[in-house]
C-alpha cells in the first residue's frame, strides 16, 4: 500500500537577485494513514514551507509530491483548491478565523465550498463545534472568544470537512502553556480516533507527544523516527545552541 503523503526529493528555492535561499533542500518523507507526525526544527529551518507544500498551498520548485497516490504536481489552481477542500484540514498558529462570521459560519466554510446543502452544513458544523466543546458559542464572533477557544473553533473548522489529513502549523504557538496542553490533548484524542495529523512545532515537549518526529535543519531532514528517540538529538542540539 502506498503512503498517504509521499514527498520525494522536494526542493523549494527562493531566488532573490543573486542570492538563493534553499528553504527545502531535498526532502523525502512519507506519512501513512493514521500517523501522528511532529515536524520540528529551529526558526527558519523550513517547517512551514514543508507544510505549505504538503497542504497544497504552495508548489515545490522540484521533486514529486503524491497525495493519496496522486501526483498533484501538475494540478491547476482550482484542482488544488478542491484537494484542500476534500482532503486537508488546516490549523494555523493565528487561528485564521474570519472576523465577520460567527463560529457556526466559520466552521461551515469548508462545507460551503464543498457544495453541501444548507442543512448538512449546519448539522456538520454544529457537530464539529460540539466536539470541541463550543456548541453554546456557535453564534459568537471570534473576537468574543479567548485565544484557546478560537483555536478550538479553528480545529472544529478543520474537522468539519472530514479531511484525510489534519495539518497544524504551530497550533499552540500563540497560547499559554495550559491552553496549549488542552489543544494537544485534543489533537491526541483525534489521533486516537484514527485521524492522520501532521503537527509543526519548535517546542520539544510538544513534539514529544507525537508518535513520530521529523527534525528539519536548514531544509534537510536530520532525524526521522520515534518521538522518544529524538529526545537525545534535541538535547544535543540545545546544548549546541548555548
Amino acid at each position, binding site marked *: 500500500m502506498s503512503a498517504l503523503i509521499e514527498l520525494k526529493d522536494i526542493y523549494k528555492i527562493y531566488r532573490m537577485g543573486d542570492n538563493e535561499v534553499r528553504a527545502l533542500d531535498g526532502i523525502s518523507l512519507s506519512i501513512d494513514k493514521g500517523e501522528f507526525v511532529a515536524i520540528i526544527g529551529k526558526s527558519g529551518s523550513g517547517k512551514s514551507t514543508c507544510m*505549505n507544500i504538503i*497542504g497544497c*498551498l*504552495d508548489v515545490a520548485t522540484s521533486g514529486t509530491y503524491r497525495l493519496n497516490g496522486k501526483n498533484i504536481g501538475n494540478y491547476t*489552481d*482550482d484542482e488544488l*483548491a*478542491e484537494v*484542500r*477542500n*476534500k482532503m486537508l484540514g*488546516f490549523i*494555523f498558529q493565528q487561528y*485564521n478565523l*474570519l472576523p*465577520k462570521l460567527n463560529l457556526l459560519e466559520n466552521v461551515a*466554510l*469548508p462545507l*460551503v*465550498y*464543498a457544495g453541501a446543502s444548507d442543512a448538512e452544513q449546519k448539522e456538520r458544523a454544529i457537530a464539529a463545534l460540539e466536539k470541541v466543546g463550543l456548541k453554546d458559542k456557535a453564534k459568537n464572533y471570534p473576537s468574543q472568544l479567548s485565544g484557546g477557544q478560537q483555536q478550538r473553533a479553528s480545529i472544529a*473548522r478543520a474537522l468539519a*470537512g472530514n479531511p484525510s489529513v489534519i495539518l497544524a502549523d504551530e497550533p499552540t504557538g500563540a497560547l499559554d502553556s495550559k491552553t496549549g496542553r488542552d489543544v494537544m490533548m485534543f489533537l491526541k484524542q483525534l489521533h486516537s480516533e484514527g485521524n492522520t495529523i501532521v503537527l509543526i512545532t519548535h517546542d520539544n515537549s510538544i513534539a514529544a507527544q507525537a508518535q513520530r518526529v521529523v527534525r528539519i535543519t536548514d531544509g534537510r531532514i536530520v532525524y526521522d523516527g520515534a518521538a522518544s528517540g529524538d529526545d537525545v538529538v534535541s538535547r544535543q542540539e540545545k546544548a549546541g545552541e548555548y
Partner: protein
Amino acid sequence: MGFAKCFKMAVSTIWASKVRSFLTMLGIIIGISAVIILVSLMGGLTQQLMDMFADLGTNSIQVTINQRAATRNVEPDEMYEFTDGNDLVENASPSLTVAATVKTSKENKSGTVSGVSEGYGDMRRLNVTQGRFIQYSDVMSKSSVCVIGAYQAKTFFDDGAVIGRELKINGTPFTVVGVLEEKEDAASGSGDDVVYIPYTSAMRLNASSVVSSYLLTAADEDRIDEATSSIKQFLKNKVGDEDYYMVISMKELIDQMSMMMNSMQTVLVCIAGISLLVGGIGIMNIMLVSVTERTREIGIRKSLGAKQKNIMMQFVIEAGTVSCIGGVIGIITGALVAILAGKLLLDASITPSAASIVVAFGVSVAIGIGFGYLPAKKAAQLNPIDALRYD
C-alpha cells in the same frame, strides 16, 4: 456557494462600512438620478409642446404671404375657390394677427387679437359655451363683434353675463357675441387667452387692404404632405417667386420639434452618462482597495477550498450590489426631483417612464459588474500562500 449566499454576504459587508459604501455609491446615485431627471423633464417638456401644437390642430397648414415683396396677393375668395376645388384641402380661413390693447373698465392688457372668418371655429374645433361664433354676415359687414376666450371672460368682466358687453380694441369698441369653452384653467397666455374678430374688421384695425396669412386644414391626416405640396403649387402659380410665401404644416413643425427634442435629450443623457462612468471607476477603485485589504480573508477562503469562481463571484456580486443599491437610490431621488421640478418649473405633473427606470436599473447593475470584474479577477488569482502570509 450559491448566489443568494453571496448576495447576503455582500449586503452585510456593505452594511458593515456604511459611510464608505455610500460614498462609493455616490457617483452612481448622481449619475442615475441625473439621467432620470433629464429624461423625465425632457419628456414632460416635449409632451407639453406637443399638446400645444396639437391644440392648434395637427392637420392645420399655415400660409404666410410676404405682402410687400409679392407682386400679387391671394384674395380670400381665391383661396376659398382653391380649397373648394381641392380634395386634399378641407377648409381655409384668413388668420390675421393684430397687435392690440384690449381694454374694459376693469382691465387693460396688451396682446394680440386674431382676425378670422366664420369657418375658423370649426377648423380649430372651438366650442362656444355662450352666444355664437363669428358669422358670415359679421365678416361681410365688417361688424365690430368679438368672440373671447375663458381668460378674457373671467378677467375683463365682473360677473357671468358677458354677451352683449363691450370691450375696446385699440380704442374701437367691440361687442362680445360669444365666449369659448375653458381649456387650460383660463390662464393668461394659454389657449384660453384669445380674442377673435371678423378678419375684415382686423384689416380695418391694421389699416391694410390685403390678407397676408391663412389657416388651412388638410382633409386627411395621412395626406398632409400631399396637401401641403398642392397648396405650394397653387401659391406658385398665383404669387410666383417661392421666396414670397411660406407654407408650414403643423405636422412638419411637430416632426422637426420632436427631432430636435430627441437630439437634445441624447446630448444631455450622454453628459449625465459621463458621471455614471466616473461612478463606475469609483466602484472599481474601492473594490481594488477592498481586495487588498481582504487579502488575508481571500487566503483563508482559498486554503479552505474556495475556487477562483467562488472568490470571483463574491467580489463581482459585491460590486454589483453596491452599484445596484446606488442605482435604486438614484432612481428614487431622480424621480422625486423630476416630479418636484415638473411641478415648479413646467407646472405639469411629470412621472418618470417605466422604461427609463428599467434601463437605469439595468445600467447600474451592468456598471457594477463591469467595473467589479477587474478587481474580482485580481482577488481570484491571488496565490493562497501569499494571501495567507499577507498582513
